[in-house]
């Protein structure tokens, strides 16, 4: 379905509004294909269409919500009355209210590429097979490819409200991903590689394969090192995961509800001088770029940290209103939930030196290639973090032996202040933050 059809459905729902109530309808539709190959054969090929609607009602200062995984006309009215009924049981809050048009023009982004629609199923299968083959051929120690996938999606969505919001859009995306197994003697190590784009011709099979091969093979022979405090270089993929967590602490919702460790720190130097952090979904390079936020307001570029100084928090309509500010266009949600507040395309402003030069300046350190257990090991409220990690030792400015079964720990507060340098290798990843190599001092590495 195209955005215009979806907007029509959203407008129809909003048209059912009664006096004294606000209604917001969010409607989405997507078509997806996913191919997984294994040992030269197609393991699975999935084709799917999905759609859904979410309806928010605010009446008498109370909020209710309901959603349904269909756009069946019979279901829409029932979903609205369910949302209405739910609103009866909420607590009144004077700051509840839908977004209102704020005059900010949405950025012109080119997120929909017809070339994806013309790319046939056979070609998709061939890409996945080509990826698997490239990983296998990459190194004699690669003994298997656990999965090699091609996937794509064409999505469209629309939002309408009784307060005058009308927004709709569509985008295309595709990806390649491979998980590799490398083996030597009794030992097995794993690696992954991926490539993402708006249409298949921008996917890079060779690069995805090379990453999957290198990540797995360079871990062969890994040992558990002793515990010590070291300087770490975070791989771009790892940095992006940490940025996502730090971004969460800068949400206006966390601040208002007393869950942000930076709540009273506006204007303070909370990070090293080299840290400038920007959330910019208007950047077309970002995989998660978008012209409108989850409430239908235009997205905008928000600088959060400037030279290490805390400059602002992010807001949706509710948190903006309640904190006496305005929405920063940072409502995030799917159709099945009410809008939260979050980063949409977060990145550090890159530095001048590539990773090799960063490493060359470190006498004793660790290149952290991957982390695990982030969901259980990072507490974004207290700031304590401790995650499983693997990577390579850095000795006298050069990459040395692989290490595994370690954790790295610090606090988010200290880590930001202990940033030594940001690399020049900014890269957009299939997540809401960008990767870049990051050097952090004084991290505890626990091992034997």
């Amino acid at each position, binding site marked *: 379905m195209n955005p215009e059809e979806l907007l029509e459905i959203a407008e129809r729902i909003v048209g059912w509004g009664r006096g004294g109530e606000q209604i917001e309808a969010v409607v989405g539709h997507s078509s997806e294909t996913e191919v997984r190959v294994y040992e030269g*054969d*197609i393991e*699975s*090929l*999935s*084709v799917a269409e999905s*759609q*859904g609607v979410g309806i928010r009602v605010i009446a008498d200062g109370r909020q*209710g*919500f309901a*959603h*349904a*995984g*269909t756009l069946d006309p019979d*279901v829409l009215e029932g979903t609205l009355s*369910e*949302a209405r*009924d*739910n*609103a*009866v*049981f*909420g*607590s009144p*809050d004077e700051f509840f209210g839908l977004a209102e048009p704020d005059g900010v023009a949405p950025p012109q982004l080119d997120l929909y590429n017809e070339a994806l629609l013309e790319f046939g199923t056979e070609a998709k299968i061939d890409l996945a097979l080509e990826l698997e083959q490239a990983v296998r051929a990459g190194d004699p120690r690669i003994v*298997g490819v*656990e999965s090699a996938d091609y996937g794509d999606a064409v999505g469209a969505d629309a939002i309408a409200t009784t307060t005058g919001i009308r927004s709709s859009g569509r985008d295309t995306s595709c990806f390649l991903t491979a998980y590799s*197994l490398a083996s030597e003697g009794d030992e097995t*190590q*794993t690696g992954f590689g991926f490539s993402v784009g708006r249409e298949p011709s921008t996917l890079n099979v060779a690069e995805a394969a090379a990453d999957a091969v290198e990540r797995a093979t360079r871990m062969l022979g890994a040992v558990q090192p*002793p*515990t010590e405090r070291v300087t770490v270089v975070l791989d771009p993929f790892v940095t992006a995961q940490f940025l996502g967590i730090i971004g969460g602490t800068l949400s206006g919702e966390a601040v208002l*509800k*007393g*869950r942000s*460790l930076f709540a009273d720190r506006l204007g303070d130097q909370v990070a090293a001088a080299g840290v400038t952090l920007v959330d910019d979904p208007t950047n077309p390079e970002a995989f998660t770029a978008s012209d409108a936020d989850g409430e239908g307001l235009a997205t905008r570029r928000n600088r959060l940290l400037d030279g290490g100084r805390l400059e602002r928090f992010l807001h949706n309509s509710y948190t903006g209103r309640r904190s006496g500010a305005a929405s920063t266009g940072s409502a995030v949600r799917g159709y*099945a939930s*009410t809008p939260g507040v979050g980063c949409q395309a977060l990145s550090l402003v890159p530095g001048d030196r590539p990773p090799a030069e960063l490493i060359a300046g470190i006498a004793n350190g660790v290149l952290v290639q991957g982390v*695990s*257990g982030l*969901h*259980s*090991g990072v*507490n974004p*409220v*207290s700031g*304590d973090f*401790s*995650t*499983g990690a*693997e990577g390579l030792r850095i000795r006298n400015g050069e990459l040395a032996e692989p290490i595994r*079964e*370690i*954790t790295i*720990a610090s*606090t988010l507060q200290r880590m930001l202040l202990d940033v030594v340098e940001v690399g020049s290798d900014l890269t957009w990843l299939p997540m809401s933050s960008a990767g870049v190599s990051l050097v952090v001092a004084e991290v*505890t590495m*626990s*091992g*034997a």
Partner: protein
Amino acid sequence: MIDESVVTGTLSEALRTGGEFAEVFVEDRQSSSALLDDGKVEELTSGRTRGAGIRVVVGETTGFAHTSDLSEAGLAKAARAAAAAARGGGGGRKAAALDRVDAPAPHQVEVLPETVAKATKVELLGRADDAARAAGSAISQVSARYADGRRRILVANSDGLLAGDDQVRTRFAVSCVAVGDTGMQTGFESVGRPIGFELFDEYEVDALARTAANRALTKLAAQPAPSGSMPVVIGPGGGGVLFHEACGHGLEADLVAKQASVFRNRVGEQVAHPEVTLIDDGTMAREWGAYAIDDEGRPAQRNVLIEGGVLTDYMWDLLRARKQGRESSGNGRRQSYQHLPMVRMTNTYLANGTEDPEAIIAATDRGVYVAHLGGGQVNTATGDFVFGMSEAYLIVNGQIDSPIREGNLIGNGPEVLAGIEALGNDFAMGSPGTCGKDGQGVPVGDGTPTLRVASMTIGGTAA
């Protein structure tokens, strides 16, 4: 949910271009939740999704399509899409006549959540908020969530299988923030069972809220966790996540078949202390991972994975089992009709030991006692896994000492299994969990008695 004749027609359509196996999975899911945060009932949410996933197998290839259109025409369209995706050309066959066999439910559901007034559900939230705030003046924020769900499924396949299940789940969670001189700390507690509103006959929300609050308050006085390797004692009910990660995932036949498990080719070997017996049991009444049938229509069963320390078997879904010419072990699960099933755990637990738990702690000179665990993650190919400790204490001279701040533990599955040196006689199940694999989340349970592992690496910041 859907007419038997429509199911039969859909299977025929799916096999028309030469499929060897076809399956229709129909799901109707309704959910409701209520959230209190910052002293206010922020919202009530209701959701409804319905649809069917159809797969067709030809040789090594599975074609899959799903649709939210459950009309005969909608299903036929999805069946043709799945068949086209499977690329036909197989031997071709006709679907066997359907024979409905329903497995017994692991337990009865007494009070369907949809029959309970919304006001009654909301009232629980206010009670939890009051109780948590009353636990100490340092409690600065509370959120409480009530959630229920009902998932009705119907599975039919070309072997003639036809089975259904009606799965109800109810859950309650409280999360608190405490503020002190050392900053903010958090505490969390949740309960859940595959039952209805009778959950609250068993659990008082006030008590759950106090537990969550006390966890946050205790941590205000916590010191940084140590770093490095030392003995770890895990409290009753707490250690299930450890086994889920340390070896559960590595015993899933799909990962084993792809050489992505450190436990491949090890059936029959002694992998743990002779007292270690590990079981995955989807039939456990009232436990979070229980069901009557899995998402391929196979009745849940009790599978012994490690017995007397010897690895006895892996867990299986339908396709992996067929290749081996054996039966599925009832572990084929999927997040929703929009997903392909794969091998998943249900309720995974370590059977009771014989030692007095007090004696296990007393025999530990210096180490860490983990009372409550967070989530975990494993790399099945290397066996390396982590899990979080959300409530933990130092052990000094055989006694539980001061609390320590949050952090992860890291270990290697086969090494930790071999390093279990004491098992208590105080078995308990742990908190309800959601297990993630390949992007799909499913509810799982776990349990253990008190146990001690000779050495694991604690990921703290203190020396």
